[in-house]
C-alpha cells in the first residue's frame, strides 16, 4: 500500500479532542508529512498534462507550511494527494502519527463545503460520527469547538442561514474536531470579503497558537502566506514544481498588525512577488498555447 492511500485511512483508535494542549509542542520531532518525488499527470482529450512534477516536501510536526503559486500550478492537486483524495502518478506521500494508529488528516475546502442538510453542530460532529464516536461525546466536542470559533449561538442553524464567514469558521471547526495529524487547508478564505478574511486569519492564528496543529495551507495570497506561515513554499507554473522555500522569521504569537508593521515584511513580500511574477507570466503564455 502506498503512502497516499494509507494517509486516507482513518484510525478508529484516534481520540479527537478540541484543541491540543500547548505543552505537547516538545513531543513533536521529525517529519509529520513527507512528500517524496510526487508527480501527477492528468489525461485529457488534448493529451497528458503534468499538473505537478517531482515535488519533495517534508513538514515537521507543529509547523505551519504555506504553499503559494500562480493559478493552475497544481497547489490544490498536491493537497488532494496528501489528503488521499487523489493518487500520485509517481512518488509517495506519508503522514506519521503520534497515536500509533493510522494517520488522520482533515481538509478545509475552498468555498461551499458544509453539508447544507446538517446544522452547524452536526457539521462539526460529522468526522467524529464517521469515526464512530458516541452521539453524546461528539455533541460535547462539537459544542466546545463551536465555542472556540465563536458560533455557540448558531449551533442549530443550517449553513444557508448564516454568513459565508461563519460557514468557513464552521468548516475549520469541523476539521479540528477529528484532531488531525495534519490540517489541510485549500484557500479556505479565498471566497471571503477582505474584512472577514482578516478576522478569520486572526482567529486561525489564535487557534494555531493554542493547538500546535501541523498545517499545510494553500493560498495565492502572498500577504496571507506571510501572516500565517512559518515557512512558505513557492511553486512554479504548470507543471508545478517547488521553486523556492522561504523561512518566515516573525515571532509567535503573532497578530496581523505585528506582522505587517515588521520591517522585514516588505522585503519578504517583494522577494516572493519577484519569484511569483515570472511564473504568473509563464502560466499565461502556456495557457495561451505558446512554449517558451
Amino acid at each position, binding site marked *: 500500500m502506498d503512502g497516499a492511500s494509507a494517509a486516507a485511512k482513518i484510525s478508529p483508535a484516534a481520540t479527537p479532542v478540541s484543541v491540543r494542549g500547548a505543552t505537547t509542542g516538545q513531543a513533536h520531532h521529525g517529519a509529520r508529512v513527507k512528500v517524496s518525488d510526487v508527480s501527477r499527470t492528468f489525461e485529457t482529450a488534448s493529451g497528458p498534462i503534468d499538473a505537478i512534477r517531482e515535488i519533495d516536501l517534508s513538514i515537521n510536526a507543529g509547523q505551519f507550511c504555506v504553499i503559494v503559486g500562480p493559478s493552475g500550478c497544481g497547489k490544490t492537486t498536491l493537497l488532494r494527494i496528501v489528503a488521499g483524495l487523489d493518487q500520485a502518478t509517481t512518488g509517495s506521500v506519508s503522514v506519521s502519527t503520534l497515536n500509533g494508529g493510522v494517520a488522520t488528516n*482533515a*481538509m478545509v475546502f475552498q468555498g*461551499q463545503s458544509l*453539508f447544507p*442538510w446538517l446544522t452547524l453542530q452536526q457539521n462539526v460532529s460529522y*468526522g467524529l*460520527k*464517521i469515526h464512530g464516536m458516541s452521539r453524546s461525546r461528539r455533541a460535547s466536542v462539537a459544542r466546545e469547538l463551536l465555542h472556540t470559533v465563536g458560533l455557540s449561538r448558531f449551533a442549530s442553524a443550517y449553513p444557508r442561514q448564516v454568513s459565508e464567514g461563519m460557514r468557513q469558521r464552521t468548516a475549520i471547526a469541523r476539521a479540528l474536531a477529528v484532531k488531525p495529524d495534519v490540517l489541510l487547508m485549500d484557500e479556505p478564505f479565498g471566497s471571503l470579503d477582505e474584512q472577514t478574511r482578516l478576522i478569520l486569519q486572526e482567529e486561525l492564528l489564535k487557534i494555531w497558537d493554542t493547538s500546535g496543529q501541523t498545517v499545510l495551507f494553500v493560498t495565492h495570497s502572498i500577504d496571507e502566506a506571510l501572516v500565517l506561515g512559518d515557512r512558505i513554499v513557492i511553486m512554479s507554473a504548470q507543471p508545478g514544481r517547488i521553486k523556492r522555500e522561504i523561512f518566515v522569521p516573525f515571532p509567535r504569537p503573532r497578530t496581523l498588525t505585528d506582522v505587517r508593521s515588521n520591517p522585514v515584511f516588505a522585503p519578504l513580500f517583494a522577494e516572493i512577488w519577484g519569484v511569483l511574477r515570472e511564473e504568473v507570466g509563464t502560466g499565461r503564455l502556456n495557457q495561451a498555447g505558446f512554449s517558451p
Partner: protein
Amino acid sequence: MTIQRRRIIELALTFAAPVVLLAIWETLARTETIDPRFWPAPSSLIDTTAEIIRDGSLFRNVRVSLGRILAGFLLGAIPAIGLGLTMGLFWPIRVFLMPLAAAIYAVPKLAIVPLVLIAFGTGEVAKYVIVALSIFFLVLLNTVAGVIAIESSFRDVARSFGAGPLSMFWTVALPGALPSIFTGLRLGMGFALVVIVGTEFIAARDGIGRFIWDSYQILAIKKMFVGLIVTGLMGWLLTLALDLIERLAIPWNHGH
C-alpha cells in the same frame, strides 16, 4: 397594507374559478340548456353525497383505494430510493441498469395492468404491485438524478473524513438527493391515482374507481359525479400530506 390587499385579491381569484364554473353549470342545468340527466346540477349532488355517506359506501371505497395507494407507494418507493442511491453512487451499476430503467419508464403505466393481473391474479397484491410499478421508475430516475446533482465537494468532504461506501450512502447520497426524491414522489402520486382508478375499473370489487364505474353502469350519474369529485379531493389531500412529510424530512430546504 398593499400586501394585505394583494392577499385578499389572491384569495378571491383562487376561489373565483371554481365558483364561476359551478355557477355556470348550475344555471345551464336548471334552465335545461344541458341535459340534467347526464349533467346534474351541482346543488342536486348534495343529497346524493349525504346518502352515500350515510350508507357507508363512500368512506369504505375511499379507504380501500387509499390503502392500495399507500401500500403500493411504500412497495415501490422504498426499493426505488435504495436502488436509485446505489445507481447514483456507483457508475458501473448506473450504466448497466440505466437503459433498462429509462425504457421501462417510457411504457404507459396503464399498459402494464394486464401483465400484472396475469402474474399476480386479481387479488389485493396485484393492486399494490401495479401502484408500486407505476411509481418505481419515476422515483428511481429522480433519485439517480438527485445523487448525480450532489456537488462533488460534499463527497470529497466525506471521503476526506474516511467515509466508506455505507457512510457515503447514508450521510451524503440520501440527504443530498432528498429534494429530488420528493419531486419523484409527488409526480408518482399522480400516477398512482391514475392507475389505481383504472385498475379498479377493470379488476376490483371495491375502491373509488369501482364506485365510479358501477355508478356509470347503472346510470347513477349523480353518484358518479360525487365519485369523481371525491377522487379529486383524494389526490389533493395526498399531495398535501406529501408536502407535510417533505417539510419534516427536509427542514434545511425551506423556501426552495
